[in-house]
């Protein structure tokens, strides 16, 4: 999948610079610049507590940035929060619709709040679209995780927003429901909706047009999947063979080795300094094992970025 064509400033759904948020002494989001083109699916990744949720809340007017400027859908994030709220759909990390209302009652409520024209038809359309129609009278609190997520998506789409902010929408949802969810997201993006989505799943990250990685409130990398991988300059070796546990212990803390990760019967060893890593490998190389240099995966890249960030910011 290719990202939409190069952007001019007016094509940007989100365009912010230097966005900062502090809670007391702690800087949770530190001078983040972000530009998201209209119609793009932008993946936001990072460990827990990296500031993703705080950043999203600033975009949709739930928090006021301590510093930084910018626009969301062309509205100023500091002064035009009311307009932003009208045109943004925000799906919270925790299910936050009314558990004691039915699916239809929840959608009706949200549609009334946004004064959606021809409410009945709009609610019915959204029920049909997300396959909720024959469950519309079920109480939201009794739904399983996957159905709650669909209801939440339906509810944050009902006022036809131009930008969708999804905070870990697929946490705790089974793989099939996750896939259907992503198909839906791609369909929406194809129709022109801009989507900013946070996730911990690498396969989901790979389904985004562009990615950004956040740790300790700092934006560490961004770009398309290929750009992120290339920018990391990470070298990874894959090793198969007997007694990998001993080998892993031997490799850890050697010069140039930054990560040693076991994947079932293979071991991935990565480092940013290719030369030193190769030298170390040459020193411990054992003919019983099969050594192969591979392209670093997104997860390897992210873990490497996080370790680096820990040295710099933590």
């Amino acid at each position, binding site marked *: 999948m290719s990202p939409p064509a190069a952007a001019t400033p007016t094509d940007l759904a989100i365009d912010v610079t230097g966005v900062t948020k502090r809670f007391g002494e702690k800087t949770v989001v530190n001078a983040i610049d972000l530009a998201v083109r209209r119609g793009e699916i932008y993946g936001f990744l990072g460990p827990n507590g990296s500031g993703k949720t705080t950043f999203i809340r600033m975009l949709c007017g*739930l928090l006021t940035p301590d510093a930084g400027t910018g626009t969301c859908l062309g509205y100023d994030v500091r002064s035009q929060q009311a307009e932003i*709220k009208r045109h943004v759909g925000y799906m919270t990390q925790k299910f936050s619709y009314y558990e004691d209302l039915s699916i239809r009652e929840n959608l009706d409520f949200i549609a009334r709040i946004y004064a959606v024209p021809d409410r009945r038809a709009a609610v019915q359309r959204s029920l049909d679209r997300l396959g909720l129609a024959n469950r519309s009278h079920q109480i939201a609190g009794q739904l399983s995780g996957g159905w709650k997520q669909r209801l939440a998506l339906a509810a944050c789409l009902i006022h036809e927003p131009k930008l969708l902010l999804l905070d870990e929408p697929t946490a705790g949802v089974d793989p099939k429901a996750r896939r259907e969810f992503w198909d839906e997201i791609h369909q929406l993006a194809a129709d022109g909706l801009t989507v900013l989505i946070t996730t911990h799943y690498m396969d989901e990250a790979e389904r985004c047009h562009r990615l950004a990685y956040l740790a300790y409130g700092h934006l560490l990398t961004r770009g398309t999947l290929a750009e992120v991988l290339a920018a990391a300059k990470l070298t990874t070796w894959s090793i198969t063979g007997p007694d990998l546990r001993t080998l892993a212990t031997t490799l850890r803390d050697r010069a140039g080795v930054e990560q040693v990760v076991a994947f079932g019967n293979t071991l991935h060893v990565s480092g940013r300094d290719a030369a030193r890593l190769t030298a170390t490998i040459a020193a411990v190389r054992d003919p019983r094992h099969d050594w192969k240099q591979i392209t670093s995966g997104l997860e390897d890249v992210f873990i490497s970025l996080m370790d680096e960030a820990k040295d710099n910011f933590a």
Partner: protein
Amino acid sequence: MPRFTFHRLWAIVLKEFIQMKRDRVTFGIMIGIPLMQLMMFGFAINSDPRHLPAALRVADQGPFARTLVQALRTSDYFAFVHETSDEAEAQRLLQLGDVQFVINIPADFTRQLLRGERPTVLIEADATDPAATGPALAAVNALAATVFNRDLPGPLARLRAKDGPVDFRVHAHYNPENITQFNVVPGLMGVVLTMTMVIITALAITRERERGTMENLLATPVRPFEVIVGKILPYIVVGYIQVSLILVAAHFVFDVPMVGSLPLLYVVSLLFIAANLAVGITFSTLAKNQLQAVQMAFFFFLPSILLSGFMFPFRGMPDWAQAVGSCLPNTHFLRIVRGILLKGNGFSEIAPHLWPLLVFLVIAMTIGVKRYRQTLD
């Protein structure tokens, strides 16, 4: 069968202590409520109320009349705040609740006394609350026999008839049979409304916050005023159902007189219901969770029942407690309900109790709307 073990019990005990320590407000209220009760029961409440405001209508300027007034004054039960010669004015003071008693000493008091004709001193009492008037009237009877002992020496001593030289006649207005229910049942309306209205709305916003639905609500364009008024309106209906229930029971079960205008009562109830709902909403924006909200509601409820004049005579309380009581909407509402039902008060008589309700409503509402945050900052 698993047996009791001390370490498991201890684990629960420790965890409870840690959680108790984290919830400062709950802990504060657990300490605050006994202190408040001590203050109210220990110092404020008095079932033998003294210094009750009274009006004097003295038509006789003779020394015996003065002695009588002096004796009533030193009994400590009466505080003569008004003196008038106009009967209509005296009635009005009683009607407004400005005085608890009107004491009428007739023009030929001294003459009748000296002739041994046992002059009649008419004591008109506002008996809506029998508990407030009872002790004072009892004191008057005790006083009757002895008041003129010093003034009637020697041969005049014969005037000290065994039933006293003066005939005190009590005219208990509004509740002539001193039926406690007539006072309690209308008062209950204010208490029931305070209890349910405050708790229900105190939970309203805390529940949204606790369940996480607040974040969603804040992300929509909905305005604070819309949320708060939207949460208040449905409960106004509930409040009116309660008012009607109590009125039906008051009439059919307790035979409480309904002298005044019921439509007027319904209209002014709105102000009181709204004031309580606004307090609840304000608590709701202050409390961190539903438990705290309920505790705050209880904190408000306690003085509303004890210092409002519902359970104990308002005028029997010391000044500071009366001042606290005057800040509570229930105090004013009780006077309005009792005034309309028992005394037949009209709008002009209850007006002095309407504006405090209005002020209270505006203040509570302002704090509520100001405290309600549109962001999660």
